[in-house]
């Protein structure tokens, strides 16, 4: 089971004020029945009121819970959809935040990432490639092209200065990568994400649902170590944190692993000697298998089940008030 929009589950917080307002209404209702209700049937009236209130409030809360679950887009199981494509389009999204200048991987995380891209483009000569660089914002450095020369040239200029917005936002990187696939393309599509996973802004999981829907896997390359290192500045001294101590940046594989797993991609470690071979063969295999099978599996959405329960609960909550309860208790 997968929750495609996990952030929507924050909607459960609505239950707190709703339950508080329901409890307040109940207490007020009891007080008013005590004041206005018939003295000869005080207990019966109070009992009917309590039961009505309970069922009405409970059904309404059930409605809210299931409406939030429906909006969270829960999926389980898979169904095949036709995928009639040939060839391979790859958008390479490179993290160019300052943490990528860390030297826990020699000569630096960014240089190693660019080296991987350079080697990968040579191993996949028939693929069209685009290059997206991201930091706090993202920019398409090279649009999707067969022109390997163009990609080769621009790789030399890839660095933190390409984008002025500070931070690390994998979400904008993935969104820009998604935008870089032209509609007219007939090829299979994949994204190669090179990052240390240290996402400071944005919600990296947000574009994942769209990527899953379109059948675009993300091959993530972890560029850095979990032990981390300092980030050298242009004069060689390390970047300092707020306390004046050298800031340590550590690679976070969890984010990249999650994105890769949920989109049907794979995670690679830039420190591994066969990272380029593994990455290239994973991309080739992906295109070959898809082309041979002619279909892909997409998650089966189950929102209708939850929404159906929510609507029934809403009607039940309303019916409790509409139905006369006289003589039933």
């Amino acid at each position, binding site marked *: 089971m997968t929750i495609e*929009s996990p952030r*929507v589950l924050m*909607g459960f917080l*609505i239950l707190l004020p709703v339950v508080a*307002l*329901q409890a*307040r*209404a*109940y207490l*007020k*209702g009891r007080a*008013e029945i005590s004041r206005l209700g018939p003295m000869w049937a005080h207990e019966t009236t109070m009992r009917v*009121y309590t039961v*009505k*209130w309970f069922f*009405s409030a409970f059904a*309404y809360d059930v*409605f*809210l819970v299931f*409406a*939030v679950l*429906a*909006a969270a*887009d829960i999926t389980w199981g898979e169904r095949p959809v036709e995928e*009639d*494509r*040939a060839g391979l389009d790859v958008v390479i999204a490179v993290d160019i935040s300052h943490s990528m200048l860390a030297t826990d991987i020699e000569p630096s995380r960014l240089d190693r990432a660019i080296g991987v891209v350079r080697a990968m483009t040579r191993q996949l000569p028939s693929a069209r490639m*685009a290059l997206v660089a991201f930091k706090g914002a993202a920019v*398409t450095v*090279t*649009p*999707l*092209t*067969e*022109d*390997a*020369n*163009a990609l080769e*040239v621009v790789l030399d200029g890839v660095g933190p200065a390409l984008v002025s917005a500070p931070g690390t936002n994998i979400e904008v990187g993935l969104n820009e990568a998604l935008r*870089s696939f*032209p*509609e*007219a*393309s*007939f090829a299979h599509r994949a994204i190669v994400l090179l990052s240390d996973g240290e996402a400071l802004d944005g919600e990296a999981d947000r574009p994942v649902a769209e990527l899953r829907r379109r059948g675009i896997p993300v091959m993530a390359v972890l560029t850095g170590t979990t032990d981390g290192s300092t980030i050298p500045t242009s004069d060689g001294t390390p970047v300092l944190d707020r306390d004046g101590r050298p800031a340590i940046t550590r690679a976070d594989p969890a984010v990249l692993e999650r994105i890769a797993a949920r989109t049907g991609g794979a995670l690679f470690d830039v420190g591994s000697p066969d990272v380029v071979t593994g990455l290239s063969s994973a991309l080739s295999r992906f295109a070959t298998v898809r082309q041979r099978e002619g279909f892909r599996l997409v998650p089966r*959405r189950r*929102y*209708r089940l939850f*929404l*159906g329960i*929510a*609507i029934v609960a*809403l009607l039940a909550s*309303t019916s*409790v*008030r*509409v*139905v*006369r*309860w006289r003589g039933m208790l």
Partner: protein
Amino acid sequence: MLVFDRPGLLLLLLAVPLLIYLRHFWRGRGGTLTFPFGVWGGRGFTPPRTAASLLVAVAAISFWAGFVVLVVALAGPQRVSRERSYLTRGVDIVFVLDQSPTMAARDFQPENRFEAARAMIRRFVSLRQNDPIGVVGFGLEASLRVPPTIDYEHFVSVLDQMEIFEMGDGTAIGMGIATAALHLERSNAPRKAIILLTDGVNNAGEIQPETAARAARSLGIGLYIIGIGSDGEVEIEIRDPQTGQLMRGTIRESFDQDAMLELADIAGGRYFYAGSSTALQAAFDAIDTVERVEQRSLLRVVREPLDQVLIFWGVGFLGVDFLIRRLFAREVV
């Protein structure tokens, strides 16, 4: 276009009038008091219209709007669009655009030569669908600005950022053609073409235009040359990108048509003279007609589910109803 995954579920909406009747108008519903005015022949009374009664009405409308929206979401609404994918390879085209200062001459009133050329390239691109298009800018030097791509949005955004004078004061036509040819070299497109737009004579760069034209021909690349600008005296207005200084004046400078014709001949291409907007458009139309290949395409249906947005709206409407009833109408059940 809007379609539904399970349109049958929309039949549930037929129950809405009955539910509205039961909740708001049925005399036997709970929460009502009945007065026997009829026995006395009286007309009873109607509650006065107050702000509270208006709010209750708003709450009721919100409730049913929310309910309807949720039922619609249950039916699986989807926005359907068609996406055209091309099964065949288009023509690779690279524009080689002169960015020398003389391109600021205003003989395409109200535009200058550069703006007129740029507008025409934009129009040309808008008529293409699967042809990778790139652009090389040249002045004193030449540089690839966009490699051949079908991402036309990116192409146009870079084209719009290009400025006169940014490649220096000079006209390196040979370098421009050579750069374009280099980036078309490995292309396996059925046809490849370079479209050169210039208003001057080659006076810079290490590669002679004739050499570049021969190289293009040997690589199977077609060369179209469009000579822009009129022969007479023309106003010019240009801002120096280094100093920001605005310079105005008149020029009487033209390109060497014979050299252009010879260049087109060497490359086995064609030369067009574009002294006016109409002539420029005619040149582009001629190239557009020639540089076409038969293309096979596939139409895909793309479905974008809308249920999540509708669930948010539905819950929002119902929230308005809940808040009004609890906070303003002071309902206790």
